[in-house]
């Protein structure tokens, strides 16, 4: 591999790593929010 190839490989690893973490946070937040809303609806309907 050429020296330039190492530069672009390292840049790709950094960007993919950061975006993967952002995607993980987004997925985790959506999942928990959906679960909270589902349970809160259950509680509200249960009280009625």
């Amino acid at each position, binding site marked *: 591999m*050429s*020296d*330039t190839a*190492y*530069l672009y*490989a*390292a*840049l790709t*690893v*950094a960007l993919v*790593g*950061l975006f993967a*973490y*952002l995607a993980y*946070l987004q997925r*985790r*937040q959506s999942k*928990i*929010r959906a*679960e*909270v809303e589902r*349970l*809160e609806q*259950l*509680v509200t309907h*249960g009280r009625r």
Partner: protein
Amino acid sequence: MERREVLGLGLLAGAAASMLLLAVLLAFYMTDPASPPACGAPPLPGCWNAPPAFRIIFFHVPLAWTAYVSFGVVFAASVLYLKTRNAKWDALAAAAGEIGVVMVTLALLTGSMWNKAELGVYWRWEDGRLLATFILWIVYIAYVALHTGSRMPEEARLAAVFGILAFAAVPVSYFSQTLLSSLHISFRPTFPPQTWPTLVVGVVALTLLFLHLLRWRLQIEALELRLLETKEAMEAAA
């Protein structure tokens, strides 16, 4: 989510993205690639075996800096948790620890690629800097694993004590360059003059990204707490 929170997150994300873009532009289009002197025969002191790979410095150093800042936040929040027993400090420490592990993982990966280009090998266990940073990585993975999400005060106390002790690995990693035998690239007078402003922009960009991620991660912590409370309320009502 409140409008103010969304606006705050958006502003931070925008600032981080703009600074990241500027850092990439500076690193790839405005820095003279020919400036770091290449090693010829005989090799000059402070020369570079792989001048094109030098630009890895522009994201490797900011990633490592952000990891150190994250672990500093873990340390401060852990001290504050033990002092006040307020769960918000435990949440802050857990969030910063997780982000720090991501940053140090990426710093290790990008650093090993630069090592391969410059010195011919990805990793050298006998290199003090690499070994100390690897230990730092393992220590903080263990720290993140301690937060299982149960939110029990005993677990938070244990994590806070671990978070304070673990911080000892940060100065060891940072100063291992001079304290231990290491071939890790140090700052040289042969750095191109544009290196410093570009590095500063990269560090500011990654610090803003860290703040954005921290806020986001704390919102997730708050949601998890709400989920736990809702579950407890349902169990109590059943």
